[in-house]
């Protein structure tokens, strides 16, 4: 599951688990303002893990880390302990940065509680885990803040206490690296500020190097790298297979997000349905990986094993059936009861803010970079568009895109094995790829791949505004519906 192995000579700074948001190994650069992904294992100070940690993946991650980084003492702690080291490292960063320091204090206070998920499985009734939030409860406001009455009347005329709450960077439903600082007026969000702590200005081009956005799947990096590389020969099956993997990872990313939303909603049935849909996608990906290398999309001659072909086709069929059931589940009134009409971003607002990707398409604006690709056009690709721009529209759009992605993967897989010629990568200055959170653009500069993700900062601002005025639980659902990233990608 972890896309790193002891066989590789140089370790990747980012460990990406396809069905979860991210596992990142990170360190800190004292000269920088914030956390940085590290390229040197000696600088590793901690690991970001999904919250809650999938129990089945804990042991493989621990084994992988012990192989990759035998010299890093932090790596030898139990996985549940690793997240806590982030608080200490962030405190170090904060010595030169008051804002980060304040935040580190919040995190540190909770890290000492030692939850570590050790009681979450015993006491909860749903998959969300009632208590097991990895020791990061995140209600960072202290008692004095809680008791302070500001004297400002609320919407209903009552004088309410103002409460400051800080979420992240290591807690569900926030993705790793994202911090939300919220001021509550009673239980209503009066103010919200979102910050992405992690930065990724450029990617060094090398085999097995980090992806452009470490929160996004690894195949995207390979696609961008190969597309931006000059002089790459046209390819046949490799191009189609690359598309298969990209679309599978798109569906996986959307479903992983949907599962985190289901956990936030405390909806066990939806958690289970997403798990059922993700499993065959991962199996198909593993089947394809056996053909094209463990961590990269094949761009050369592809050795096709009939057994693997059949396995991938079968798994994609299973995924298609599971997604159809999932789509029916999401189309019902139960999801709408929590999401409809909440966090509305109108078409005009989306256009003015410069939103991109699924968030913009849910508001009825914005395109899809895949529309320009002749290969996608050959498969009959039509961008999915939504209406309403609320949390429900964003959710349904991602589910519909997952369904479409699996169908595209099935179509391109058929082309790959029928020997239909594919197109070589275009030699453009900027190469654009439609990612699960919006377009990713890449340009080669020297031995680095400059990457840019337009619309990333805009979505943080829009999401902050959308949460204001909502009750706490609804505000979290709205924030989650934007599928935010903790990474600032680009210059």
């Amino acid at each position, binding site marked *: 599951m972890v896309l790193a192995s002891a066989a590789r000579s140089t370790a990747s700074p980012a460990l990406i688990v396809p069905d979860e948001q991210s596992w990142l190994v990170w360190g800190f650069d004292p000269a920088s303002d914030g956390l940085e992904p590290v390229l040197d294992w000696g600088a590793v100070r901690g690991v970001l893990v999904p919250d809650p940690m999938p129990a089945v993946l804990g042991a493989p991650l621990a084994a992988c880390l012990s192989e990759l980084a035998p010299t890093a003492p932090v790596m030898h702690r139990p996985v549940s302990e690793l997240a806590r080291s982030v608080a200490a490292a962030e405190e170090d960063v904060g010595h030169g940065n008051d804002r980060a320091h304040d935040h580190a204090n919040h995190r540190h206070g909770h890290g000492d509680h030692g939850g570590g998920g050790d*009681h979450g499985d015993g006491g909860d009734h749903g998959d969300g885990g009632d208590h097991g939030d990895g020791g990061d409860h995140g209600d960072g406001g202290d008692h004095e803040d*809680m008791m302070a009455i500001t004297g400002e009347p609320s919407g209903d005329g009552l004088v309410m206490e103002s409460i400051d709450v800080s979420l992240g960077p290591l807690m569900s439903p926030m993705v790793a690296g994202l911090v939300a600082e919220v001021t509550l007026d009673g239980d209503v969000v009066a103010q919200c500020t979102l910050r992405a702590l992690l930065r990724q200005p450029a990617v060094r081009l090398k085999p097995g190097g980090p992806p452009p956005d470490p929160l996004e799947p690894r195949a995207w990096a390979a696609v961008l790298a190969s597309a931006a590389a000059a002089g790459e020969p046209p390819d046949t099956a490799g191009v189609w297979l690359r598309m298969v993997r990209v679309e599978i990872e798109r569906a996986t990313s959307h479903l992983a997000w949907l599962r985190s939303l289901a956990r936030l909603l405390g909806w*066990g049935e939806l958690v289970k349905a997403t798990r059922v849909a993700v499993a065959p996608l991962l199996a198909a990906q593993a089947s394809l990986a056996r053909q094209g290398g463990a961590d990269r999309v094949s761009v050369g001659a592809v050795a096709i094993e009939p057994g693997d072909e059949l396995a991938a086709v079968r798994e994609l069929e299973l995924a298609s059936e599971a997604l159809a059931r999932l789509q029916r589940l999401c189309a019902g009134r139960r999801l709408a009861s929590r999401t409809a009409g909440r966090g509305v971003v109108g078409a005009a607002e989306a256009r003015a803010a410069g939103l991109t990707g699924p968030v913009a398409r849910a508001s009825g604006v914005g395109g899809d970079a895949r529309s320009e690709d002749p290969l996608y056009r050959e498969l009959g690709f039509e961008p999915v568009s939504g209406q309403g721009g609320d949390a429900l529209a964003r959710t349904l759009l991602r589910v519909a895109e997952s369904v479409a992605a699996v169908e595209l993967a099935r179509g391109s897989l058929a082309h790959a094995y029928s020997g239909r010629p594919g197109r070589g990568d275009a030699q453009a200055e900027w190469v654009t790829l439609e990612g699960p959170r919006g377009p990713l653009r890449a340009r080669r500069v020297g031995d680095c791949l400059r990457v840019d993700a337009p619309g990333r900062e805009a979505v943080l601002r829009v999401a902050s505004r959308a949460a204001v005025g909502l009750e706490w639980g609804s505000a979290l659902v709205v924030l989650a519906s934007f599928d935010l990233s903790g990474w600032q990608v680009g210059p």
Partner: protein
Amino acid sequence: MSYFTPLAVVGLALAAAPGVWLLEQLVAGQRPAPGRALRDLRIMLGSPLQRPESCDSALFHLAPSLLVLASVVALATVPWAPGFRGIDLQAGALLFVAALAYVTPAMVMAGWGAGRPLAVLGGFRWVALMLAYAMPLAMVITSVAAPAGSLRPTDIVRVQHAVPMAVAQPLALALWLPAVTAVCFLPPFDLPQAGGELFGGVFAEYRGLDLALVALAQRVLLLAVSGMTAALFLAGWEWPLLPPAVWMGLKTAAVAWLLLWAGRRFPRVAVDRALSLAWRVANPLSMLAIVYAGLLTLLFYR
């Protein structure tokens, strides 16, 4: 045995924990792993108690005990078989509701004592929820007591020998089930702790024995409300062929399964929607249920 001894009630309460845990695992579609559960319990009990930074640590540590006390008293009022119950009061059904009422101060104490904003928010969510659902609970108890002419649970069971109250008064049952789910802070009404929203809410700071007591109390509460639902609506032990206690056990398990299953089927109810449903729908309908119960009693039970 004509009466439960207090020891027997406590024994039943302790037996509730593994029983309900087993049901939870089955409803969640997971294979029960007792070894892992015991290991988790051992770790939980071995953890030191959390000492909140706030000045209300006494309230904080008293809350789990109060929660257990309320749930055990509620359990004691449930009639399990003829002559087989903990407390046999004339107003036993009211005592059941009164015992459940003590869950509210326990929750507020837990949230306030923790001294964390989201824990306090969970406590206040609970107060709002219980204010809204207390009336339907009391009204439903009155509705099912009317045909029996008694608030003694055993009398209410006996009056159902022909027709269970679930059939005679389906509206009352429809009002009762969400209300008792809320009382047990079970999904989709798990608003005070709300795993994904409040990150543990009122119980987020509990560790060690405190946390074990909370987990025990919730399971005892579920057993108590399931047992009382079986007694008040499903004719308790009053069905043929099987021994009375077996019938009661089966019906209790079925109700508990239903409540847990519903928790997985629905997303957590939004606070505003839960309150709106309670005040605008459940409360007026509970008045209607009373009127209906009165008519039913006059026409068929006199």
